[in-house]
């Protein structure tokens, strides 16, 4: 290609901002989970009739056994931290473009009565970062205003 820059040539960069309003269908299974969050402040998982493991997020079939997961059970709202991330880098929220205050904590907590490997992933409200560790007991706190999204869970709080 003869794409050689001429001496002193300004190389123009075209700047564009994309904004895309999106609507995602949730379906009857994930939709039921979100409705339970919004209306009843309950964490409902579905369960595989074959292997007995819970699925969070709930989905139509067991990912391991490939059979329909038709039973529903309430888990938590208390649980135990399995893994956590203390986030210092202010990654913009792709839903809103807003940047979170840092540092903040994300954790994977196994809710009480969970069968199998299905921790719930959410923010952890931890004013003292040195308290955050695996095995920490936590409880789900629901948002006051709920719209049927994962933001209906405000965060986990540490059980004193």
């Amino acid at each position, binding site marked *: *290609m003869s*794409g050689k*820059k001429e001496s002193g040539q300004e*190389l123009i*960069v075209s700047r564009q901002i*994309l904004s895309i309003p*999106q609507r*995602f269908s*949730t379906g009857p299974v*994930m939709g039921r989970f*979100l409705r339970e969050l919004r209306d009843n402040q309950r964490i409902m998982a579905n369960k595989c009739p074959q292997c007995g493991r819970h*699925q969070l*997020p709930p*989905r139509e079939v067991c*990912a*391991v056994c490939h059979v329909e997961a038709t039973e529903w059970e309430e888990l938590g709202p208390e649980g135990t931290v*399995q*893994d*956590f*991330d*203390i*986030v*210092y*880098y202010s*990654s*913009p*929220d*792709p*839903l809103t473009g807003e940047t979170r205050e840092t540092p903040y904590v*994300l954790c*994977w907590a196994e809710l009480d009565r969970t069968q199998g*490997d*299905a*921790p719930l*992933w*959410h*923010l952890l409200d931890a004013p003292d970062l040195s308290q955050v560790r695996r095995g920490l007991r936590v409880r789900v706190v629901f948002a006051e205003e709920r719209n049927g*999204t*994962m*933001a209906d869970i405000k965060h986990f709080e540490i059980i004193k």
Partner: protein
Amino acid sequence: MNNKNRDVAIIGCGMSKFSSHREEVNQPEMVHEAVVEALQDARLGMDDVDCVLHGNMELFEMVHQPDMWHVLGSGAWGKPGIRLTTGGTTGATLACAADNLVASGLHDVVLAIGFEKLQEGHATGGITNMADPLWGRSLQTGALTGTTAQKLIEQFGEERAKYAAMKMRTIMDENAMRNNKAHRRLGLDRKHMKETGAGSPPLVGELRLIHMCSQSDGACAVIFTSEEKVAQFGSNPAWVVDHETVHREETLIFSTGKSTHRVAAERLFARNGITDPVHEIDVFEMYDPSSWWGVDWLGEFMLCNKDEHLRMVEQDSIAIDGEFPVNPSGGVQASNPIGATALVRVAEAAMQIRGTAGDHQVARPVRRALASGFGGTLWTVLMLLSKEKP
């Protein structure tokens, strides 16, 4: 692979210069740099190419059908082609597809092109938008996580784990200093590893800026052909022995059970009679987006027990003149144009076999080389290459 119709070899590799800002060229011009270099390396012209594969992650630059825009640079005008996009593994998937297309007999000469111009989009936003929009999108922080650092610290103690992560980072930089295509060539000094690690801004947990890969602009092109054409062209071949792809259901959690890396390695090695990978493979180009992952994944891919992988890092086995060189190119920690990155691993592995890696050619003779790709929500692709025809 046991049931190939015919053998397939890599006979040409090309790369653009990798950099954080390639503002002096547009996308087709950048792709063109890699394509021209690959054709020259193979001593072929565009008329010899039967099929062009093109891949990247559309959600980074938000350009859909970039293969249409790139056609002047890619040379694909009027040729059969396929566009592929499988996340970070895109480049490795391109290599697998090229191998399959030639092995099947559908095409004789396939040009695979991977590219990314991360400067033209938002990489962390793009990766975040790969998360399930109903479940994880509001929580995902791109590809950043500190859980592997925490796991290694718990397994091996804070001092030893942090040393291993910085040692690996420094070896990668030493290699990048030998590779004039590499994006980040920092000149890290082994004497100051501890302070360099401690003084680097934390991203997530103990994952710090110094450990993490770059966001790069760049393109890679690799030419695959059949055993008949290798003889006809008189090419310098790196033969494709086999490849393996392992992925898992997105929300099946990753904290327990075997990693896709280990499963892929076990399958590939079993199928090819490899029982002692560290001694039976001569060089490994690993897709390691951070040095914490690099240390941990070395153990997964090489099926290590206990602290074998830490010792390989501590004792310089993975250095360019070591007994098991890892990423003589400087790897992903030095350059990460995502849609090209996994194809660069395959290209670099092929270059080591073909003896064309220049200043970063490893010291030991290379008969077998392994390349890995990583991406999506914990996907793995492995490709095994050899100097001898399989």
